């Protein structure tokens, strides 16, 4: 990793840590904030996909699928946004499900990495299992919202620590002139 990449990883970790701390302090009112962040993230992803289609994938054989994928992502983002004014327990379930899905994707990545013999499969598998476990715990304790908030915040802290650890990991810097 270069210094820029390390810095970016550490920064990402710190921001995630701050969000986790805010959630712990503010409590169940912070759900809406997290939901908005998720909406923003999905919107950006959807818009990026649409821009990618119009600038690049339009010329690709079978590129139309990229357009439709982008539209669905934006739709998903706004669907998420529409959940902001509903009972908090449902927001927590929704966030837990999204987390569980991300955990599932990490496990698939771990399987892929293992196929190729990459050492990162252990890390990906750990992330995936932790995400799914946390999501399940959130749903189990959903009636006791303060417990659920703590569990979710712990999940975010774990993610933050992995980003920060990745930033401080010793890697070789490669330059060519």
């Amino acid at each position, binding site marked *: 990793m270069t210094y820029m990449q390390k810095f970016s990883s550490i920064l990402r970790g710190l921001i995630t840590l701050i969000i986790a701390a805010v959630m712990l302090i503010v409590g169940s009112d912070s759900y809406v904030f997290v939901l908005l962040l998720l909406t923003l993230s999905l919107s950006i992803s959807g818009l990026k996909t649409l821009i990618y289609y119009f600038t690049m994938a339009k010329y*690709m*054989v079978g*590129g139309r699928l990229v357009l439709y994928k982008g539209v669905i992502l934006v739709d998903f983002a706004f669907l998420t946004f529409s959940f902001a004014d509903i009972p908090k327990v449902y927001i927590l379930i929704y966030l837990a499900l999204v987390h569980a899905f991300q955990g599932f994707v990490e496990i698939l990545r771990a399987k892929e990495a293992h196929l190729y013999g*990459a050492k990162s499969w252990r890390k990906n598998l750990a992330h995936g299992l932790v995400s799914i476990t946390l999501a399940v715990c959130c749903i189990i304790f959903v009636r006791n919202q303060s417990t659920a908030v703590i569990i979710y915040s712990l999940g975010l802290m774990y993610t933050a620590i992995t980003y920060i650890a990745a930033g401080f990991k010793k890697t*070789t810097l*490669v*330059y060519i002139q």
Partner: protein
Amino acid sequence: MQEDFHYYATYCAAFLAGFSHEESLDICYSAQLVDLCSATFLARIGAPQIAATTQLQLEMMEARTDLLGLQNITRIWASFHFLPKDLYAQKEKRNKRYMNKYRLICGPNGDLVVDTVKNAKDTSLQHIGIAMHVLADTWAHMYFAGTPSQVINNTDRDFFEILTENGSTIEKRITFRHSPSTPDDLEKCLYTNTLHQGNENSVMNLGHGRAGHFPDYSFARYRYYPSWNEYRDVYKDNPKDYMNAFLQMVTAMKYLGGKIDNFEKEVYDTEVHEKYGNKIMEILEKRQLNACEDWEKFGEELSGEEIPAFDLAKYQDEYIKADKDVKKDTFIGRFINGALSQKTMVSNKIYQSKNMLAGFSRFEVRNKL
């Protein structure tokens, strides 16, 4: 291309170009080493990882695909395995981002091939070997780019192998599956490729990953639709292309050995073609996963000497045990110098064409180590 061509066929071409048996061995060893000289290998022997000429699959899985990561990937793959054919290619109604990737499409007889060969003049046998690897790969890997790109390197289900059965030509649809540990099945036309990834910069979309190992088989004749070709198919005749690669290598090595004055594009050694063309075509067309045995036999017939099997550990001790100031004179030291020179030259040319995909490059470096 694979070991059968990079090691054994390069030996044959070097010998036919006038190099001695020992010189040919050094050249072909270096040509094959390009496919194995990864950062992991270099780290293990205490060599500078900047000289990596390839990336192992597990390195690719862990490679970052942000801007800097992509530049590192592109520098390696475009310099050694997917030499761009035309860095100034034009295409209508395309933006800069698209054109940067389009211009990295590999193909034979581009200006960079001439630069690669001339860059190896009056250097070392190791550098010649590297140049021959790069030259050969321009034939095998044409139509793919050495940068992760879905819009350039993707393929679809319409991928057909052209076979001759009972005297007639037939097309058989190739089935790709994602199973890296399972060998390719020639009988059932079952080959392994990389998983489809919708992400433009995914490493799964690097080079000919989406076509698996198939383009590296010398017997393969196939038709498919490259992502960039506006729904036009291309027909690839590997036996013919590999023959051209072989003959062009002979010409290049005649130039590098001082037997001819110049190296130009689209010049193939006719003398070798007349004398050995049929024998070589027989090896190339034989339907087998690995043609090492046939090429080895041919090489030993030519020189009358034994060609040892490729051994990655052969020169490691020499490099590890050498003092710092004499490392550059070891086999691997000279290889590293050649690799750095090639990488810098190509990265610089890409940068000069106002394409930042290989990163920022200030000047060409020779004999840096």
